[in-house]
């Protein structure tokens, strides 16, 4: 799930340019390639929500990973905040 969020955030596959074996090892270790400096520093709501969702799912140890339910609840809350903000913006 974290890989999908990464793609939604960056438009890139996480390990696109790596040889298969290296990519597999990184996947096992849940190692993320660094985000570009713009996304890394971004405080834009959608970027922050996706970065947090990635962090929730790509923990190396299973006990530290959030469940799909927790991730869904977090994203649904962020989405509703975002939609509320957008509505406010449109009315102003």
């Amino acid at each position: 799930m974290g890989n999908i969020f990464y793609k939604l955030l960056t438009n890139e596959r996480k390990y696109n340019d790596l040889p298969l074996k290296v990519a597999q090892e990184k996947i096992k270790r849940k190692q993320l390639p660094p985000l570009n400096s713009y996304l890394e520093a971004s405080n834009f709501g959608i970027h922050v929500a996706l970065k947090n969702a990635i962090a929730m799912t790509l923990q190396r140890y299973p006990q530290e990973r959030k469940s799909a339910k927790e991730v869904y609840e977090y994203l649904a809350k962020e989405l509703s905040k975002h939609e509320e903000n957008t509505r406010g913006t449109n009315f102003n």
Partner: protein
Amino acid sequence: MDDVYKMLPRNERLHVATEVAHGLHDFHSLQDEKGRTAVIHSDIAVRQFLKINGRFQLNDFNTAKLIYQNSETGDLCPQYVGKAKDKVSVLIIVRVHNLLSHGLLIIIINNNMFGTRTKNRSPEEMLQDHNEVTEMIDGKLHLEAFFRALGSIELTVRVLVNFEKN
């Protein structure tokens, strides 16, 4: 879905991420009696989410794995591919978000939940392995627990019961 992603406006991406998490949450809501997830998809990837009627929906369950535990022994239930040989078998074909291009067939026998991979077979084809359909004798309690678990989630369930007499 890869190409669809690239065309998504920035504002839509949070919406899609929420739908992806929702689909997986629904699937993981299939739980055992202790509330533990009983099934995992095993192949979550961009290509497994199809855009249908404007929504991204989880699909392709042919590599799903059961991690359901036997409630008496605590052992993980085995996965069978093919014909169940016990006296009683209950076949439950689960459609997640009304999709069954690849299905997950779940069979409950006594305290065990068995899974088979269906590989693009229709429910009717899957049933050809189970010829005699008679009446329910056993396994009722487990079925009820299973339905309670299913009751709260967005699944359409088709139930087919098959009892093989000795």
